[in-house]
């Protein structure tokens, strides 16, 4: 089912939670709403579900305006962060509640509940109560409950936040796999950009109630349109420094932090001549070990396969990802080079990218 949001706005008295969001979601697409808390992603989700009423703007399902439809008439399935299972009902009853409301008979309800539960790997827990289940199992019941009514769209509100890290990884791939198999249009709200980039076909990045960017993960990573998106997408976060790009010896360099970084022509031309720009360098594009630049290591954070090192280059600090095998320790002096084919430039006032539209 296609979903369209047109100039969607939600205000609570004086506060604006969502300000004029325009968005299209294709049938079967998995879209993530990504952003820090308070950015309006959950409010938007609630409006799509029919729980909140938009202040203005429209929501369309397959071309029809659904603003006036009650949640029960929209064909949505929703998975909540808190699971929101019905504590006084068994797993089977939780899953089949929507069928009961539609008047489906007991036998069919049980059968369908069993089918869905088996699909979610909890078929043996049908007669337990939610309190007797682990977090992961409760999560699966919540997903099963959303699926049983064969919804037109699946809505997820940070469903994995309450799970421990290990379980989160497992559930992530399971949800993704299931969505791909079933082909149901899905919207997934999260503040975790790793979740968003690994699961979503496209990511809607929101901030302060507005849509900052809407593109596939790769696009957001390699061609971020704003400073915010650049800093938000990608782990560990991008280094942002003040720089000036000047011509030198027939080529271009970026002057920053007391060093001069040679730049490829295509990155430099849109930026040269400006008094000062914001420059973004991802830690993974700073190659530690050898190179024309040097600095002293201030902090080493082991990440397993790599180390996240803070390098003091004299007039500032850069964070870089270094291979574990280098055995870097604080107070070491290291050399590094910068892969400048991937640097980003932003206007210091508008925070918009100077490289991409």
């Amino acid at each position, binding site marked *: 089912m296609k979903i369209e949001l*047109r*100039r969607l706005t939600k205000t*609570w008295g004086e506060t604006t939670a969502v300000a004029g969001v325009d968005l299209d979601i294709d049938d079967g697409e998995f879209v993530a709403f990504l952003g820090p808390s308070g950015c309006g992603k959950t409010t938007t989700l609630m409006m799509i579900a029919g*729980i*909140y*009423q*938009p*202040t*203005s*703007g*429209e929501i369309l399902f397959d071309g029809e*305006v659904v*603003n*006036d439809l*009650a949640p029960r008439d929209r064909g949505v399935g929703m998975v909540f962060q808190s699971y929101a299972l019905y504590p006084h009902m068994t797993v089977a009853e939780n899953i089949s509640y929507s069928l009961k409301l539609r008047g489906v008979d007991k036998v069919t309800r049980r059968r369908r509940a069993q089918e869905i539960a088996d699909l979610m790997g909890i078929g043996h827990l049908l007669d337990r109560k939610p309190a007797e289940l682990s977090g992961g199992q409760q999560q699966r019941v919540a997903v099963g409950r959303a699926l049983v009514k064969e919804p037109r769209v699946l809505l997820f509100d940070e469903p994995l936040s309450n799970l421990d890290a290990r379980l989160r990884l497992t559930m992530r791939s399971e949800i993704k796999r299931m969505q791909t198999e079933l082909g149901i249009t899905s919207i997934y709200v999260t503040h975790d950009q790793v979740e968003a980039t690994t699961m979503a076909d496209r990511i809607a990045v929101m901030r302060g109630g507005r849509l900052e960017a809407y593109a596939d993960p790769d696009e957001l990573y390699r061609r971020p349109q704003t400073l915010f998106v650049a800093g938000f997408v990608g782990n560990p976060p991008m280094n942002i420094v003040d720089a000036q790009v000047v011509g030198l010896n027939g080529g271009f360099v970026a002057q920053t932090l007391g060093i001069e970084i040679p730049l490829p022509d295509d990155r430099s031309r849109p930026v040269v001549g400006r008094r000062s720009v914001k420059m973004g360098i991802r830690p993974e594009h700073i190659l530690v070990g050898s190179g024309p630049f040097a600095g002293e290591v201030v902090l080493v954070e082991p990440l397993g396969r790599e180390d996240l090192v803070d390098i003091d280059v004299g007039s500032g600090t850069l964070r870089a990802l270094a291979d574990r095998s280098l055995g870097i320790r604080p107070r070491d002096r290291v050399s590094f080079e910068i892969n400048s084919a991937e640097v980003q430039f932003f206007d210091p006032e508008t925070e918009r990218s100077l490289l991409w539209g």
Partner: protein
Amino acid sequence: MATVAEDSPTRRRRRRLAAVGFLTPAMVLVVAFYLIPAVLTLILSLTDLSSANFTEPWNFIGLDNYRRLFGDAFFPKILKNTLFYVFVTLGLFNVGLALVLALLTTSIPRRAGFFFRMLWLLPRITPSVVYVMMWVRMAQQPPFGIFNQLAGPFGLEPENWLFETPWLFVILTNGFVGASFGMIIFTSALESIPRDVITAARVDGASGWRLIRDMKIPLIKWPLLFVATYQTMSLLTSFEYILLLTEGGPGLFTTEVWALTSYKRALGTYFGNNQWGYGAAWGFVLVVIGFLFSLLYVKIFRFNQLVKEPLIE
């Protein structure tokens, strides 16, 4: 496609319908037993209806009852008594002692606290007639009075204490019942203060009285205000215990409070017949006083802050 206007009529209609459905039983009762009686009381107060003439059509006498009320020789005394009774009992028992009981029973081992609270709930769950009887018995003169019997050996002059100090007993009887309401509410509130907060305060150096004054009391602000408001109304309109204990005496209006006067004028037989109209005037003035007090409390304590918007539209 045109932009849909804010909060479409369908949604609003649906919501209003739902709310009406849920509130109907309550509203019916409110109208039948609060609004209509209030209006009726006002109307009644403008007549001279009594048990002598109720079969005849009602005779409207305008504000005569009110003139009589405010001109009554005992009106100032009754008003004074009422204010004295309400605020002294409120401060000493319904809020004061309630708070003390709650604080004490939560600072001793759980079972012990339970035991004391259970004892303190007894007055409330005892039938009023029996309860008052116990107090009368305690205050009686020898050889029957318990208090005299127990305190006699200590050289106490035996008296009928109810006769000697009627106000003391009026306040005690009502207070012992009233305190348990606040005690329960404050106890729950105190017990739901997160342990960590108290621990942090202890680490900061607060203990004993400081802990109570700076931490516990401010943290149960809302229950405190609620109890104060609710109990003020309770005390203002209650007279059952006073009726049973002293009937407003001894003598002339010593312990008479407004609510009792209203009741007696209307349904007592002190003046030959039941003067419903006149009693209604007393009753209506009390209702107005109570209403104004409530309004004052709600405004001052800003109870509207307690209202959180529902999160489903």
